[in-house]
């Protein structure tokens, strides 16, 4: 088991190293951040001063070396735009993202799971079609479009909800819905297919032959087993919701890490983009590592096979 965990940990660290290398060089392909910090027509001296201030005048490999050295010390650098440590910015925004992701996840599960069960139980009938349409719209409508429609309806026409910002319960409803719908649709689809698999299994047939009521067969015997892949997916989705809600957070001016990433990209704020991507990557790698270890604990064959 120890060897398995060590090997998995090694892969995880290697993934993060590759991620740091990729993001460091890719972000620099986007252009010169100094150009966005001065007006067009600014003097060469002003631009050179900015390069020097941010260490962009050094060779690329030196910049990467310094970046990694600082990273090992837990220092993600200083934002070009905010002139503030990246970690401090990240942790200031993280609670907002956690809150939004939690509410959006709750919404996606509350809506997605029952709809998926209903679609599986009523397969090929009206509820199944309604469920499929819900999933189709959720997966295909862009979240910025959903967000703007919600704002037009609930803020501008009805005046029930604030259009943007944070601070109260009402502020979170629209962004959580816009973010959660996509994931609700994917949870619905997975619940439906997982339920269909389970409902076709021998032990469910046996339960029905024994004359157990439908509600008991579905609710007790089928649901629990069908839920396992949904919960696994929900765990990974939660990490994604925290880190990639860029569009929703921007449309609703929600102060989370997704918006921080958007700001970093907009201003070519390399340390911010690197920091947010690496922190997000670390969360995803950690979640996968935990899942791998959990599987290995549950099923010893996995340790041997891998």
């Amino acid at each position: 088991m120890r060897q398995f965990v060590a090997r998995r940990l090694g892969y995880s660290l290697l993934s993060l190293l590759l991620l740091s290398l990729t993001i460091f060089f890719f972000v620099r392909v986007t252009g010169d951040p100094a150009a966005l910090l001065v007006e067009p027509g600014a003097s060469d001296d002003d631009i050179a001063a900015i390069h020097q201030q941010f260490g962009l005048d050094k060779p690329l490999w030196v910049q990467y070396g310094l970046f990694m050295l600082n990273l090992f010390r837990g220092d993600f650098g200083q934002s070009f735009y905010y002139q503030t440590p990246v970690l401090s910015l990240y942790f200031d925004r993280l609670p907002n993202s956690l809150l939004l992701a939690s509410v959006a996840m709750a919404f996606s599960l509350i809506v997605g799971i029952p709809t998926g069960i209903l679609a599986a139980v009523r397969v090929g009938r009206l509820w199944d079609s309604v469920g499929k349409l819900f999933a189709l719209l959720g997966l295909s409508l862009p979240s910025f479009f959903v967000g703007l429609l919600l704002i037009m309806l609930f803020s501008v026409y009805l005046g029930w909800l604030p259009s943007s910002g944070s601070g109260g319960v009402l502020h979170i409803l629209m962004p959580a819905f816009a973010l959660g719908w996509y994931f609700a649709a994917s949870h619905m689809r997975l619940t439906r297919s997982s339920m269909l698999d389970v409902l076709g299994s021998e032990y469910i047939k046996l339960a029905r032959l024994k004359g157990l009521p439908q509600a008991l067969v579905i609710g007790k015997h089928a649901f629990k087993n069908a839920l396992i892949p949904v919960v696994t997916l929900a765990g990974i989705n939660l990490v994604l919701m925290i880190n990639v809600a860029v569009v929703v957070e921007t449309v609703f001016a929600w102060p989370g890490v997704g918006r921080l990433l958007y700001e970093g990209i907009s201003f070519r704020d390399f340390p911010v983009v690197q920091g947010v991507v690496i922190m997000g990557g670390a969360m995803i790698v950690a979640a996968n590592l935990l899942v791998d270890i959990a599987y290995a604990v549950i099923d010893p064959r996995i340790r041997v096979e891998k």
Partner: protein
Amino acid sequence: MTTRREVLTLAALGMAASAVQPAKAAAPSGQLTVGVHITLAPTWLDPAETAGIITPFMVLYALHDAVAKPMPQGNPAPSLAESWSATEDGLSYEFVLRKDAKFHNGEPVTADDVKFSFERYRGAAHGLLKDRVASVETPDAQRVVFKLKNPWPDFITFYAVASGAGWVVPRKYVEKVGEDGFKKAPIGAGPYKFVSFTPGIELVLEAFEQYWRKPPSIKRIVLRVIPDESTRLAALKNGEVDIAYSIRAELAEELQRTPGLTLRPTVGSAPYYLYFPEQWDAKSPWYDHRVRLATKYALDYNTINKALTLGYSHITGSIMPENFEFYDKLPAPVYDPDKARQLLADAGHAGGFDAGFYTCDAAYANLGEAALNYLGEVGIRAKLRPLERAAFFKGYADKKYKNIIQGASGAFGNAATRLEEFVVKGGNYAYGSYPEIDELFPLQAVELDHAKRAAILAKMQRLLDERTMYVSIWQLAFISGVGPRVAQPGFGLIKGFVYTAPYEDITLKGA
């Protein structure tokens, strides 16, 4: 012996600025929320970090004050200084500070603070200022004297307009709390005090009732970042914000149609133009002056303006912003496609010609598309090449483009600084130059007589127009929306400044 110049005029301006102070003003009340289009940065809380862009001044005008700064009374007008004067030889500038100016902690603004702020300044043009200023002397608490190494007629422009070097911070406080401490809790001498700041999200300010010019009318101002334009407009419609910056095109039309909301266009300091980098190459069609002139007549400026900025941009014949010192008003271009075709025919292009690429900043490709259609109508056939902003300006400065460039500049300065960058030999964005313009440039640079210098610079601008070195299009309008609670939003009070200011002049209805 030194002869004082300008002092009477500027002292009068100072008195005029002071005169707006009412005998007894009502206590500030209410809150104004501004939906800001761009992310607020902590560096904007500190004048020492002022970059060469206009956006930090959105915050500086509230929180801080300058020795002199652009104001409704003048550009620049006396502020913390009630007057200034220059010696006849142009080597020394003396500022006399007003006695009633205070920082938010109650301490008076002194000459020592002015000197400290200048020496601490590290923003745009700091190298230029520090290279040319030999020393800063403070003979007493109210007087500051800047000694220059050589005469520099643009000293006031750079000190009071084109940088943040003249904005004053309290020396004792900065030394006590340190640089980071100052950014976290800045103290200034402006009309509003710092309350709280969440980077990128929100800045909250509260009225400083001892502000020397007059106490602000509004108790609290909140600058809230709402990056999405549609959401900003929705927030304005919903009454969540009172002012929404940057509402463009179709959304601006919607704003105009919405009862209770007001559209407030402000013309900024960024003229847009066409430039022909091959006009010095005898083999190029652009070498022929008639072809460049045909381009000027080919564009329907008013229709483009109405379509893209609801007609609020200013059609201009100059590459200088109207609010620049030494700006010389040139005739606005007119649309005459027949004349354009005739000029092309006279130049040997009766059937038109393939003009290659029309390179522009992708953010303004809509202007490029409209211009290309009109150019095509008269026979100048070009292909649009929109480039991402930074890449566009780098290629422009590296002199990599050919054919037609659609450029713009919002850099601070005056007509001389703009000519230096874009027109005369060696300029960062000058692909070539005309000797008759070049030879005038050094003459104005050492001319201390303002009228004579203005005459030289006006002549240079007219020569520029006669050669059709550039085809100017417009000075872009920045469109904002104002909600029903606001009586005086402050737009356009300071010429060329696109945001709401001075903050102490903003009022709410019924306040």
